[in-house]
């Protein structure tokens, strides 16, 4: 971790007493991350431009009087950096106690969002006293916005602006911004309207980057009281050709939510409304759960697999017998996986010796 290949190394600094190489443009924070220093932060999201708001990531740099924010300071040759002095750790604890003092809750359910545990994890790590620095709480929860996807509980907002920045920089929607200033800061849409009336596309990125659960996934949180551990399964969204990687969140046999995969090659953490929120069709009561056979009167009856498969096969055999191989046609799905398309084309080619196979790409 400390050493880099010659072709990407541009210099070396001293990190907590050890020589460490760095790349072109790398910040102290990035170098520290690479070397597993676990420098704390609340306003950082690796996909966004470094912002320098929370100041938890401050480090001491020899020759500079005040600590510097490691996320916004570029590594330079010969720099001597300390990431964990007693003074720094004391400042971090004070900062965490200050941040905790402005929120109603510091512990929120994991289903709130991908990053929702970040603040609480740091409070625990630093043994920060949550009752300290009493006073006014910042942010007012927006309970009038009735959208079914994003809970806007700004009582729990710490004004890190990750939501605002992800909306602008990652999503390019610019739907939300910062109203007022100082302690009265509030995250709003234009004219403080509902998200539906703004340029919000409900991609959910703001929810997933929120480190406190102030923005919460309303659909996922419905399963808060469902018993069981949350399990994550890496898969790919099936709503368009981009192929965004997702983690499917499940409790028992239920899909309870979706997280974007931050390391997904196609999406790098991004999702859209469909990938993020339109997952529950999976458990819809309309889902077919048994084979169906059409009866004389035109209605369907549920059937056992054997009967239905035999009936399906018989139909093809009969047609082949009567009209030949060129009377049978297969249409594969552009939405089912390879295995479906492959078996479908093989069904036609190996079963009938023709190329009478297509998929739905022509419509």
């Amino acid at each position, binding site marked *: 971790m400390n050493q880099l290949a010659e072709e990407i190394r541009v210099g070396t600094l001293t990190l907590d007493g050890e020589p460490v190489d760095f790349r072109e443009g790398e910040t102290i924070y990035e170098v520290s991350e690479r070397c597993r220093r676990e420098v704390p932060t609340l306003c950082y999201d690796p996909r966004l431009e470094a912002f320098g708001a929370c100041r938890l990531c401050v480090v001491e740099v020899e020759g500079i009087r005040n600590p510097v924010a490691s996320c916004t300071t570029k590594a330079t040759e010969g720099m001597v950096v300390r990431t964990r002095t007693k003074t720094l750790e004391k400042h971090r604890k004070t900062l965490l106690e200050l941040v905790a003092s402005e929120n109603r809750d510091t512990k929120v359910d994991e289903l709130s969002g991908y990053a929702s545990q970040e603040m609480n994890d740091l409070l625990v790590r630093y043994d920060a006293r949550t009752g300290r620095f009493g006073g006014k709480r910042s942010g007012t929860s927006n309970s009038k916005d*009735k959208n079914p996807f994003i809970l806007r509980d700004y009582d729990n907002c710490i004004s890190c602006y990750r939501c605002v920045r992800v909306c602008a920089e*990652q*999503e*390019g929607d610019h739907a939300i911004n910062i109203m007022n200033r100082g302690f009265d800061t509030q995250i709003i849409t234009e004219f403080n309207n509902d998200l*539906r009336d703004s340029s919000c*596309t409900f991609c959910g990125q703001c929810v997933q980057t929120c480190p406190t659960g102030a923005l919460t996934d309303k659909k996922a949180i419905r399963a808060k009281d469902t018993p069981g551990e949350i399990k994550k399964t890496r*898969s*790919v969204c099936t709503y*368009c*050709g*981009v192929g965004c*990687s997702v983690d499917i969140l499940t409790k028992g046999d*239920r*899909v309870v939510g979706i997280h974007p995969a931050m390391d*997904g090659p196609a999406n790098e953490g991004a999702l859209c*409304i*469909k990938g993020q929120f*339109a*997952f529950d*069709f*999976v458990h819809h009561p309309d889902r*077919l*759960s*048994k*084979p*169906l056979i059409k009866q004389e009167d035109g209605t369907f009856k549920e059937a056992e*697999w054997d009967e239905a498969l035999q*009936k*399906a096969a018989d*139909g*093809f055999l*009969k*047609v082949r017998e*009567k009209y030949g191989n*060129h*009377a049978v*046609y297969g249409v594969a*799905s*552009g*939405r089912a*996986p390879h*295995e*479906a*398309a*492959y*078996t*479908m084309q*093989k*069904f*036609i*080619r*190996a*079963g009938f*010796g023709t*190329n009478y*196979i*297509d998929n*739905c*790409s022509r*419509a």
Partner: protein
Amino acid sequence: MSNPLRDMEHPDLIFCIGTNMTECHPVAATRLKKAIANGAKMIVADPREIQLAKMADLHLPIRVGSDVALLLAMAHVIAREGLIDQDFIDARTSGVGEFLEHLKEFTPEWASEICEVPAADLEKAGILYGQGTPSAIYYTLGITEHISGVDNVQSLCNLALMTGNLGLEGGGINPMRGQNNIQGAGDCGAVPANFPGFQPCDDPASARKFSKAYGIEIEAQKGITKVTALNQAASAEGGIHAMIIDGENTVISDPDMKHCEHALKSLDHLVVIDLFLTETAQLADVVFPATAFAETDGVQTNTERRVQRLRAAVPPPGEAKPDWWIISQIAQRIGTPGFEFESAKDVFNELCSLSPIYAGLDWDRIENSEYSWPVPDKDHPGTPRLHEKEFKNGRGLFKVIGYRDPAEVIDDEFPVWLTTGRRLESYHTRTQTGRSAGIDYLLSEESLEIHPADAEAWDMADGEIIRMSSRRGEIQIKIRTTDRSPQGTVFTSFSFASVPVNILTGSGYDPVTETAELKVCAVKLEKF
């Protein structure tokens, strides 16, 4: 796509044509937004003032179906202004002489008449595209769902070839694939012209290869397309008498709904595999319940040819089964050997063994989704960017193409252009999005987008329900006035079964691919 998705953050000039990317491929669009934030310029050719158009430096609101004219004029300007890449042309293409000669008559002034866009803007588009270093083209079904779909694509290729915008980071010609695994369906050979891995059916060697592998003589000629198959099924002479349809709501999504419905009803035998009892499944003799997203192990290929793993996270409802299992069971029951698959892994590995573009892959190697095909052998890193040093088939060929009118043009009886597409909140025929909580809050019904001036001229009010008809049928639809639509052109999506717009479409088909001209249709609008 010729280029990987990450390249979308690096063009100098973005040319989007026939793609409503912010709604249909929102996550890909975020990359274009980043490129624009970093200073890239963008041209958007689309009849409607879609979100992309608002972000563009130049919006060309071309008349529906006039793409070839636009692209000819741009090529004309590029040639005239000396913006061609002579080194690239000399080294890697053929047929440029005839092509350049052909271009001479197609001036921006000529195209302006057809496209209904000022000649100066066409001029500007040619210069911007020609000057970009690099310039990248992005398109979707707005290019292909025309009777001139192939011509449109080839016209785009001509532009990229003459300016050398292929094989470069941030360049290329990039079709955004619509459905999640439409690329994969092609990769797997679920097309009438190709075996798996795009090995041509009419190539005797390929036919022999698959005949041997499958243990049956497969004819060495292309099959018919689904469009032809449905025509045959519907016709009195017959031809197609049985069909198996997997995961497609053909009745709603295909053109000319009445015709389609008639075709399916005429079959002796129809088997449908789906998640829901769709409008199409209702016409079937046997319907099988399939497993869905989150219930299925498998593989899908995205628009950048990246081969990715799907994983099951929960059990399916009731007795639903994976598609491959259902199809294999039917195959076995009609006596076809080679369907003894026990897992998705078995199926995929057989595909890899028969497909040269997947030869370097197997189930275990795609665990981390890091390969874009072609991956010809196990030591190959994959091919995120095509055409970097050479074209697969040798030299890039310029095609001489002329403009043709759409199959149907407006006239006194049907004086309004109708074009169709998708919306952000809906996916296809809403079998999934329509059953997901909350989506209705944003979009609960379909409507017809009409320019306010048209609505006024036709004495129609926002929210009014009107009758819209074409030569093939009529539907009722609520109108919504919006500046997004240009005057004289209306838009709606095909997502809502309650507003089956495909009753009206189906005016014509591309002669090569038989893709329907879903993007153009002449209609009339009447008050009740």
